[in-house]
């Protein structure tokens, strides 16, 4: 393994391991509670969400042959936002969900998955070209956004505030419930996507070349979109849409260790995890007495970092 890859791996592990101890002093019983029940589960959650968003982003950029592709490109985020808004508006009438699941998470998950699977089905039809899939994703995102705007118009102030708060992305939680809820989806998504590494490597050389080399392009595209949407929908449903991780981190990885999918895909997951942990740690410490929404920092840190890497590229 190349020294640079090892160095980055070590740095990412160091970020994740040290993050729970960064912040206010941990003393006595309350310190123990903060560490065990707040910070550690929050770091684990950030690792799962960051790894999923980034891995899915790297895979979407390959199958859609577009450097601007991200989980939001195929409507996942817009669908989740629409679902969450419906839940916020209907929340009081619906009451609790079976199993004590938060209504917002359930609605966001179902809507995100529904919208994304529609695009995945289109991609798997065989006739759809890559640009058709991108256009369908963008069109569905716009349609879902328009419906969401219409719903916000009819919401009262409290409902609107809850919707906006959700849409900024958040990781705070108590205990491991959220981690346990999304872990199976993250595991399935990660396992299936990494199993497609060889097909994605072939696809990186072009869709028609990959087809001639034996890759069933329509099937791989549909599988990656569908399974990617599963993991992203679970993450977004629980944490809200966290901007830019799925778009920026794969580019940072590519500029750091190259484009071989054998390295790019697992390293996107690792660096995505470390990146979100670092942003979340900064989000809870940067302002005294209050937290910034983590989505503000992912874009605020990630975008300049990407610009810097592009600028120094030879």
């Amino acid at each position: 393994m190349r020294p640079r890859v090892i160095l980055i791996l070590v740095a990412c592990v160091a970020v994740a391991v040290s993050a729970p101890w960064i912040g206010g002093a941990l003393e006595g019983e309350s310190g123990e509670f903060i560490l065990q029940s707040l910070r550690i589960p929050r770091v684990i959650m950030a690792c799962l969400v960051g790894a999923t968003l980034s891995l899915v982003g790297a895979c979407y950029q390959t199958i859609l042959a577009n450097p601007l592709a991200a989980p939001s490109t195929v409507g996942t985020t817009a669908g989740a936002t629409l679902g969450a808004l419906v839940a916020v508006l209907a929340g009081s009438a619906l009451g609790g969900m079976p199993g004590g699941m938060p209504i917002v998470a359930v609605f966001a998950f179902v809507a995100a998955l529904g919208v994304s699977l529609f695009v995945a089905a289109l991609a798997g039809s065989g006739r759809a070209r890559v640009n058709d899939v991108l256009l369908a994703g963008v069109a569905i995102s716009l349609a879902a956004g328009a419906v969401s705007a219409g719903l916000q118009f009819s919401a009262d102030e409290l409902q609107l505030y809850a919707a906006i708060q959700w849409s900024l992305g958040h990781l705070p939680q108590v205990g491991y419930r959220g981690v346990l809820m999304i872990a199976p989806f993250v595991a399935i998504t990660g396992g299936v996507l990494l199993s497609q590494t060889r097909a994605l490597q072939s696809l990186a050389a072009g869709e028609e070349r990959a087809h001639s080399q034996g890759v069933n392009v329509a099937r791989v595209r549909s599988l990656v979109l569908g399974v990617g949407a599963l993991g992203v929908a679970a993450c977004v449903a629980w944490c809200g849409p966290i901007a830019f991780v799925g778009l920026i981190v794969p580019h940072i990885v590519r500029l750091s260790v190259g484009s071989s999918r054998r390295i790019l895909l697992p390293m996107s997951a690792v660096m995505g995890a470390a990146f979100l942990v670092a942003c979340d740690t900064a989000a809870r410490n940067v302002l005294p007495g209050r937290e910034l929404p983590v989505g503000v920092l992912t874009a605020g840190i990630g975008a300049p970092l990407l610009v810097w890497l592009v600028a120094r590229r030879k």
Partner: protein
Amino acid sequence: MAAELSFNRVGVEISGKRLLQDVSLRVSEGEFVALLGPNGAGKTTLFRAALGLLRASGEVLLNGRPARQVGGRERAGILAWLPQQALVTEALSVLDLVAGARFRFSESRRNAESAARDALRQAGAEVFADRIVSTLSGGEQQRVAVAALLAQEAPLLLLDEPANHLDPAHQVSLYRLFGELWRAGRGVLCISHDVNLLSHVGDAAAVRVVGLAQGQVRFETSYTDADLPGKLGEIFGIHFESVQAGSRRVLLPGAGV
């Protein structure tokens, strides 16, 4: 059973425009077929029909079975394609790109990379193994693309203007390599705009030349046919003059008819 690709009365129509019409053609292992014709004759379209990249009427058969019923990996084990288009612009290494062409094999990464290095050596491109594809010149990229073609280890090769972007020395060495592959038993269907390069594959009398124009096969003959210049003149609309250069016959495109 020898691998075989055959087209029976194949037609392709896109957006109301007929690109191929009643094309019948066959190439098997151990055969070298050169496909000649003017721009827009339908040569590349025929390759795309063979690969299932577009829908065609008539029959496209791979080893006697309709190509549409042949799975992707199985097809890749019969046909390998060298497209006209340039390679990727993404920052992929040459070794990764060539190893990626071995998708049809279930093998370890070590095996794939070892086979990729062999293919690069065969294509005279082993010095580029650790380079990024997009940093290579057009000619160097074409040699890497040939290595990817060889790495697939398919018995039938579809070559779409393989000498594109190459200097004369590399054009000749590439056609000699295709000649060696042909003599080793591969079947070759080769689109070429330079009919004289075909003389470098060896055993010119055994090379079949198929002339395609306006989506139809206009003639099929041997490369040594004395009337080949006249037949080429008809499909290209230009006079070809035959000149003897040592043991080789050279066809010179001359004044317009």
